[in-house]
C-alpha cells in the first residue's frame, strides 16, 4: 500500500459540548473510492464537515498527504485539494449556473477540469448556463453541485448524499457519470443512504453508528448481515 491521501486518526468532533464523533479512524488511498454508510445521526455529515474544515478539530486528527489539516479553515483546505458536493446541493441562488461553476474554480488549482469539460460531462448544463441555478430540476442542480466541486480540480472529492431527494432515473444518471469523474486520478469519499448505490461504485465501505466506525470492509467481501449489524447495532 502506498501512503494514504487522507488519514483520519482518533478523530473526535464536537458541536459545542456535544460530541458527534468518537475516535474515528479512516484512511483513503490515492485513486480509491470509499463509501461511508450509516443511519441518520450516525455522524456521516459531521465526518464530512470535519474533513472539509467546516468544523475545526485537533490538527493532527485529519491528515491530507501527511499534512495536519484538522484545524485549518475551509478555504485553506479547499486550496489543498479537497472539494465537497454538499448535502442538499446548496447552490448559490443569486448566481447563474455558469457563475456557480466559476465560483468552484475560485480555489485556483490547475488541472484537467474546466468549464467546457464540465459541460461535456453534463451537456444539459451548457444549454442552461445563463439560467438561475434555482430554475433547474433537482437532478440538474446536483450536476451543477458536482461540476462546481470538480472545477476546483480536487485530488479528493467528497459526495454527501448525492441521491437524496432525486428520482431513481436521475440517480442512475448521476452515478453513471461517477466513473468518468474518479477516473481522472481523483479519490472519492461517498456518503450515501442508498447503500446498494454506494457499494456499487466503491472498493471499501465504512459503516458508522452513533459517531463511531462500526464496520470497515472491502466491498467485495462485506455481507448483508454484517451491514445490517453495523447499521442498526443489532446482531442479525
Amino acid at each position, binding site marked *: 500500500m502506498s501512503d494514504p491521501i487522507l488519514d483520519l486518526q482518533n478523530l473526535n468532533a464536537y458541536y459545542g459540548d456535544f460530541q458527534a464523533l468518537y475516535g474515528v479512524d479512516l484512511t483513503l488511498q490515492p485513486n480509491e473510492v470509499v463509501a461511508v454508510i450509516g443511519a441518520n445521526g450516525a455522524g456521516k455529515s459531521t465526518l464530512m464537515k470535519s474533513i472539509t474544515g467546516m468544523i475545526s478539530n485537533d490538527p493532527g486528527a485529519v491528515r491530507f498527504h501527511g499534512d495536519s489539516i484538522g484545524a485549518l479553515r475551509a478555504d485553506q483546505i479547499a486550496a489543498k485539494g479537497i472539494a465537497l458536493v454538499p448535502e442538499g446541493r446548496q447552490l*448559490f441562488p443569486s448566481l447563474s449556473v455558469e457563475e456557480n461553476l466559476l465560483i468552484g474554480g475560485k480555489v485556483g488549482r490547475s488541472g484537467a477540469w474546466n468549464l467546457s469539460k464540465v459541460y461535456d460531462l453534463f451537456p444539459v448544463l451548457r444549454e442552461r448556463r445563463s439560467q438561475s441555478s434555482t430554475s433547474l430540476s433537482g437532478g440538474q442542480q446536483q450536476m451543477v453541485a458536482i461540476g462546481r466541486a470538480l472545477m476546483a480540480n480536487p485530488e479528493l472529492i467528497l459526495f454527501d448524499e448525492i441521491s437524496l431527494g432525486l428520482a431513481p432515473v436521475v440517480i442512475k444518471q448521476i452515478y453513471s457519470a461517477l466513473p468518468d469523474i474518479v477516473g481522472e486520478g481523483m479519490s472519492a469519499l461517498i456518503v450515501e443512504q442508498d447503500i446498494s448505490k454506494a457499494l456499487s461504485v466503491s472498493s471499501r465501505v465504512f459503516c458508522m453508528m452513533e459517531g463511531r466506525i462500526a464496520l470497515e470492509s472491502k466491498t467485495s467481501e462485506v455481507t448483508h448481515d454484517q451491514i445490517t449489524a453495523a447499521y442498526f447495532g443489532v446482531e442479525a
Partner: protein
Amino acid sequence: MEWISAIVQGILLGGLYALFAAGLSLIFGVMRLVNIAHGDLIIFAAYMALSTTMLLGVHPFVAVLIVVPLMAGLGYLLQRGLLNHTLGSDILPPLLVTFGLSVIIQNALLEVFTADPRKLNGGPIETASIDLVGVGIGWLPLLTFAIAVGIIAGLQYIFYRTELGRSFRAVSDNQDIAQLMGLNKAHIFGLAMAMALAVVAVAGILLGMRTSFDPAIGGGRLIFGFEAVIIGGLGNIWGTLAGGVILGVAQTIGAKFDPGYQILSGHIAFLLVLAVRPNGLFPRVEH
C-alpha cells in the same frame, strides 16, 4: 416654474442621498450588517477631507485622491479587526457595536474639531449654475448627481459582471459553502466594507462642499440613507438612486410650503411608501 425648480433641486439632492444609501445597501447586501455608524463615517470622511485641504492646501476634489483610499483601507481594517467578530446568527452584536462606534466617532470628532460647523471650500463651483429654460441648476448638485449615477452604475457592474461581485453574491447567499469554495469570507467582507467606505468618502466630500457640517449630524445622514435604501427596495443597487430621488424631491417640495417641513415631508414620503409597498418600490431582482 418655482415648483419645477424645487423638483429638479430635489432630484439632484437625491443623488447625494443615494450615495449615503449605496454604501449601506452594499454592506447590508453582502454581510447582512446594519451599520449604525454609517452616517458618522460620512462625517468622519468630511473631516478627513477638511484636514487634507487645510494641510496640503488642495481643492476638495483633489482630496478625494487621498480620502478615498484612506477610508477604503480603514474599512478593510475595521471589518477584519472588529466587525467580523460581531457577525453570527445573532443580529444584535453588530447593531450594538456599530452603535458604539457611532458614539466614539462623534466624540472623537468633537474632541479634535470642536462643535463648530465647518465646511469644505469648493471655490467658484459652489455657486456656479446654468440656466435651463428658466430653471437654475447648480453645477455642484448636478455634478453630485452625475457622480452618484456613475458610482451606482459602477457598483452594479462590479456586483453582476466581475469575479469580485460573484464572490460578494456567493458569500451573501451562503457563507459556509462559499468558504468551501475557497473564498475566505473574512477577506471578502473586508473588501465589501472597503468598497462601501470608499463610496462613503465621496459622499462625505460632496456633503461637506454642499453644506456645513459638525460632529453631531451623522445620525441624520444615516436616517436619510436608510430611508433611501428602504424606499428603493432592499438589495437593489439602482433602487437606492430611486429612493434617494424620491426622498430628495419630497424634502424640497415640503420646504417649498414651509422650510420647517423639509425633513418632515421626507419622512412622510418614506412612511407612505412603506405603507403601500412594505418591501420598497423595487425589491431585489433575481439575476
